[in-house]
């Protein structure tokens, strides 16, 4: 039977859990500010080069970005449902749901990789190097795609971390059968995954939808 360990500087388990949850929330606030600098740059540069940014968004197309949004949102639903199942002591279902979340994250990375490959093939690389920029000489183009690679790249790193977390939780549930005593731990991993998801929900319009109605 799984029983969470009470650290010696805490008096009781609920307090220790509260501390862990609060710690993760504050960490996520900090993570959000990591992206905030890039968001500020995006809007700063978009004001400089509104036409180029619209063209860039249209160039990216809506399809793959929207597909990825669906994958991430479904992953979040799976993780949240997994925590709920664990709370009801249904370890088997919880494990399947967390494994599903992990696979959806992997699928996201697959789609993202395809998209990057397509960009490289078109001659679009960070820093405005590549054949594409020889044909598109307006000064905003390198900035748009450098931002695109920087922001989605940083997000992809977070997806990898989230995927590993969800996968670890799935394996852990399978091995330890923690039941409701382990729901707290699973919840922390799910929180992180929801954050990854929430950031993407903002990246999606910025790079795939705000194309001036085209």
């Amino acid at each position, binding site marked *: 039977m799984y029983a969470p360990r009470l*650290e010696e500087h*805490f008096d009781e388990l609920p307090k220790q859990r509260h501390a862990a949850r609060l710690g993760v929330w504050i960490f996520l606030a*900090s993570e959000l500010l990591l992206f905030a600098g890039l968001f500020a740059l995006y809007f700063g540069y978009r004001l400089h080069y509104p036409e180029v940014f619209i063209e860039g968004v249209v160039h990216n197309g809506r399809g793959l970005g929207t597909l990825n949004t669906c994958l991430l949102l479904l992953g979040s639903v799976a993780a949240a449902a997994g925590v709920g199942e664990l709370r009801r002591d249904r370890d088997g279902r919880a494990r399947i749901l967390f494994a599903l979340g992990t696979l959806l994250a992997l699928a996201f990375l697959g789609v993202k990789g395809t998209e990057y490959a397509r960009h490289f093939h078109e001659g679009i690389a960070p820093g405005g190097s590549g054949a594409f920029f020889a044909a598109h000489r307006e000064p905003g183009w390198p900035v748009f795609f450098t931002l695109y690679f920087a922001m989605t790249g940083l997000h992809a790193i977070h997806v990898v971390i989230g995927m590993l977390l969800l996968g670890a939780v799935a394996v852990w549930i399978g091995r330890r059968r923690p039941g409701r005593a382990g729901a707290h731990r699973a919840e922390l991993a799910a929180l992180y995954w929801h954050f990854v998801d929430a950031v993407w929900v903002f990246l999606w319009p910025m790079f795939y939808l705000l194309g001036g109605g085209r």
Partner: protein
Amino acid sequence: MSSYLGPPTTIRSWLFSTDHKRIGVMFLVATTVMLALGGVLALLLRIEHLTPGPTIMQAATYNRVFTLHGVIMVWLFMIPSIPAAFGNFVLPIMLGARDVAFPRLNLASFWIYVAGSLVTLAGVVASGADTGWTFYVPYAAETFTEVMPILVGVFILGWSTILTGINFIVTTHTLRAEGMRWREVPLFVWALYGTSVIQVLATPVLAMVLLLVAFDHGLGWGFFDPARGGDVVLFQHLFWFYSHPAVYIMILPAMGVVSEVVCTFARKVPLSYVAIAASTFGIAFVGFLTWGHHMFVAGMSIVDAGIFGALSMFVAIFSAIKVFTWVGTLYRGSISFRTPLAYVFVFLFLFVFGGMTGVAVASTSLDVHWHDTYFVVAHFHFIMVGGTLTAWLAALHYWWPKITGRRYAEKWGLVTCTLTFLGFFTTFFPQFLLGNGGMPRRYYLYDETYQALHVLSTAGSWALGSAFAITLVYLAWSLVYGERAEGNPWGSRSYEWLTSSPPPPHNFDGTPVFRHSPYDYHLPPGS
């Protein structure tokens, strides 16, 4: 009685200890080494300025030395100095906790600090950088010097800061002793709380922007390169969005130290607990909205400059509330004039002086004249050295018996404090006059008319340097020969003095219950 100092006393038991007290001491040692390193660089800079022409180094070396002095003092010393060393040591004890909320994360924070410092210093050894501590683009992206390890090093250091901040906030929320209400949380803890909020929310922005500069420099991304459509002013906005609040990361903990020392050595209830605690958050909040005052001459509209200037003055209001509350607390107190209080007097004088010049440079019309001159250099040294460093010295003396269980030599402390003040004032006051006279900062050569003031400033730096050296010597001496301290040598009512000095491994014997406020000097002793 057993204490945190040992046994075990092996090196391994220190380096991998999760005890917040040992981690605090390790931070204290590491940051003091950095202070010495940055201080030696400062002395070299001052020697170079003894003559208007080349004195002891070449122009390229000069540029690297002032850059490294800034980088080391800001990121390796001042930001972690009070929170990571003294905060780590006393915050949990002040709250009656056995440790911080996440002890392993705390140890990780220390090792990340060490790793970041080593990477930064590797850049120094490789060739150093000549960008100034501000890393302004486009120059930082193009310089041939080794700016890369320094950018990466500061990026790594940022995570140490963030983890410490998270730990302090969560500890304050979850590990207060039974019976401690929010109105009874010691003022130093409030100061650290405000600091932690800034650390958690501002540091990641800097981390990101420095990483982008590193990509620009290393991979040629041209993110801020005007030739490819980049905007160098956007970099400045993001840089100062962190680096202005960063000065509050440096000064807020110092203010917390002052609050503790003033109450203890005046034996008085603070004139207004709420005013001190609330103004901390006033500064922390407004501090996020003032970054533009670094950029008045960077092509900012008059409206924006006016707004940033006005918001900056709010900081002065909150700071003044604190200063008046401290002075009001001292007034008619039962003053016991010891070294920590002596340093607090120095702090009050220099901080008010530096603060008033800060209000002056926040006025756009005056700033245009003083921008990038020695006036600004003198202003921020008055706040950072005159403020943070003197409070750091006050904290060092105040908590020395708590940390080491030994008494330092009081006479030496008072004499050295006087020397510190005289040395400091002689070093930096002439720089106000230099700047007002038109001497630009970061210049290698200067006109002969400035020489007298430069020589005076250099002479002051030697007095300041000797004061630090003497302090290190008598403190080291006290470790071996100093009188043993009783549990509470200052007669303070604050919680960290309720346990023995040095404290036992788990801070208190048994679980403490605090039934009085940490400042109830109006009650008879022992109640």
